[in-house]
């Protein structure tokens, strides 16, 4: 019990350290994760004459959670390479999963303004329901978890924080812009649709489309979406646990 309490204390402290204190010195950090999803929401809504507004809301939520992974990647890389914080924490009782847990929770703080906007749009869009809320939270938690695992794993391999500037846009492109996150999969050329299913966010978006008033998956389709999403998340967490470089070889 004491051990669990220690771990929890470490996670909460890291959350406060990286999620609250920086905002005190630079409040503009809070709008960091709002900008891109809201920009997409704006353009897609305008360009589609409002038809894809609900898709843009679902896409915005997913993109916000994915951005946590890329922000985490940058923060962890910066702390490791520039400040040597990772080495400070390795030589302490803090374990890798505690560190990444604390950092991942801290990034959630930055997502609050964006998630607040999208949650408000979801409710005021008339799509809100208890079942929908459960799906929404479940999907977003899974996306947050795998994005954090991916961000951490990559960051531990980087030798310079600038490498994150290359990977972050690629991750964003591959997981939130190209796959049918902001648009229905039917809008894709049929020859390209199979490729879309390589991205876990396609399954996440499929589930979310069902709770924002767009055509959602069938029962079996939803089961497949959940299985793939959970499997991918567990796989990435396992990969992070095995392959992330906490102690260097």
């Amino acid at each position, binding site marked *: 019990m004491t051990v669990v309490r*220690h*771990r929890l*204390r*470490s996670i909460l*402290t*890291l959350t*406060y*350290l990286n999620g609250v*204190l*920086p905002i*005190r*010195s*630079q409040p503009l950090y809070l709008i960091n994760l709002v900008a891109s999803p809201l920009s997409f929401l704006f353009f897609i809504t305008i360009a589609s004459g409002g038809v894809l507004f609900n898709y843009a809301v679902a896409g915005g939520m997913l993109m916000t959670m994915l951005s946590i992974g890329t922000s985490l990647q940058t923060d962890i890389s910066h*702390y490791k390479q*520039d*400040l*040597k*914080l990772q*080495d*400070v*924490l*390795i*030589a*302490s*009782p*803090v*374990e890798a999963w505690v560190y990444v847990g*604390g950092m991942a929770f801290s990034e959630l703080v930055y997502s609050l303004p964006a998630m607040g906007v999208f949650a408000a749009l979801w409710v005021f869009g008339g799509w809100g329901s208890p079942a929908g809320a459960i799906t929404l939270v479940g999907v977003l938690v899974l996306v947050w978890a795998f994005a954090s695992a991916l961000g951490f794993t990559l960051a531990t391999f980087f030798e310079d924080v600038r490498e994150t500037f290359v990977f972050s846009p690629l991750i964003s492109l591959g997981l939130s812009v190209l796959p049918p996150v902001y648009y229905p999969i039917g809008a894709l050329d049929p020859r390209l649709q199979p490729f879309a299913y390589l991205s876990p966010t396609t399954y996440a978006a499929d589930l979310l489309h069902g709770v924002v008033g767009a055509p959602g998956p069938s029962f079996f389709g939803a089961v497949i979406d959940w299985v793939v999403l959970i499997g991918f998340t567990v796989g990435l967490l396992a990969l992070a646990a095995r392959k992330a470089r906490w*102690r*260097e*070889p």
Partner: protein
Amino acid sequence: MTGPAIEARGLGKIYPRGKAVALSDVNLSIPAGIVFGLIGRNGAGKTTFVRIAATQLMPSSGTLTVLGGDVLRDVGDIRARIAAVPQESRPLYFVTVDELVYLYLRTRGMEAPEARRRTDAVLEELDLAAVRKKQVSRLSGGMRRRAMVAMVLASDAEILFLDEPTTGLDPLARREVWGAIRRAREEHRTVLLTTHYLDEAEALSSRLALLENGRVRLEGTPDEIRGRIRRPFRVTVQGVLGRDEIAAYGDVTDIEGGFLVFAREPDARELALRALSKGARVSMGPVTLEDIFLQVVGRPLDSGEPTGADA
């Protein structure tokens, strides 16, 4: 504890990239409760040794035990009892000095009242109480390093790894950090200090090891190390005497305006008297660590020539 705090047997490290040999057959026993200085040039292997002992880096061969635990098998137990300030580490710029120390202790899992008590105590003792509410980004380099050392000093760690804690600091700032390290010494905690400032190693360390090209070249107390030197006295002679006239007394090195001679005591005394009688400017005394380094390694610490493969 009764055994050594850190013990290396045949320790080796080859970095996977480039196959660079950083440590080779290192045997070292570091007693508990002292400041142990690891000295050597940049690239001699000091940081590699510290990083392996602090469980940040895997060894390639040999064994290393820390507080009786093996760095490969007993990582969790070791990590609960150590703390480190890595080389070139910097504090998060947006925290205050107080938050830096307090939140570090909380991250280590310490209860709030205990963390508060230790934070207050360490800031008082290291003269940081006046700046406790200042953001670390607004502190001088010396104060920042001192705050980093305060952070680990406030912990309950039994071994502190301080990797070049004063590199790049001015002499005044270095002495500020020395004060913090002396506090750890007074508490009888084990400190593994790496430095390439020999005066620092001599001022702070009870025992020293000299690393060169990833190998331990000398180990012992500063006096023991001096005792192992073939020519334990240094004489500087400026003016009048030529190299040929003094070469018979010992090992001669050129210095500005004269020569530095390492000699045995009778030869040093005779040379000093002879030079004085001829009107030369003379100084004589026991060799410094810098001199020992020069004798062992064959070139001064700051000659800039690379030696080991990495860190």
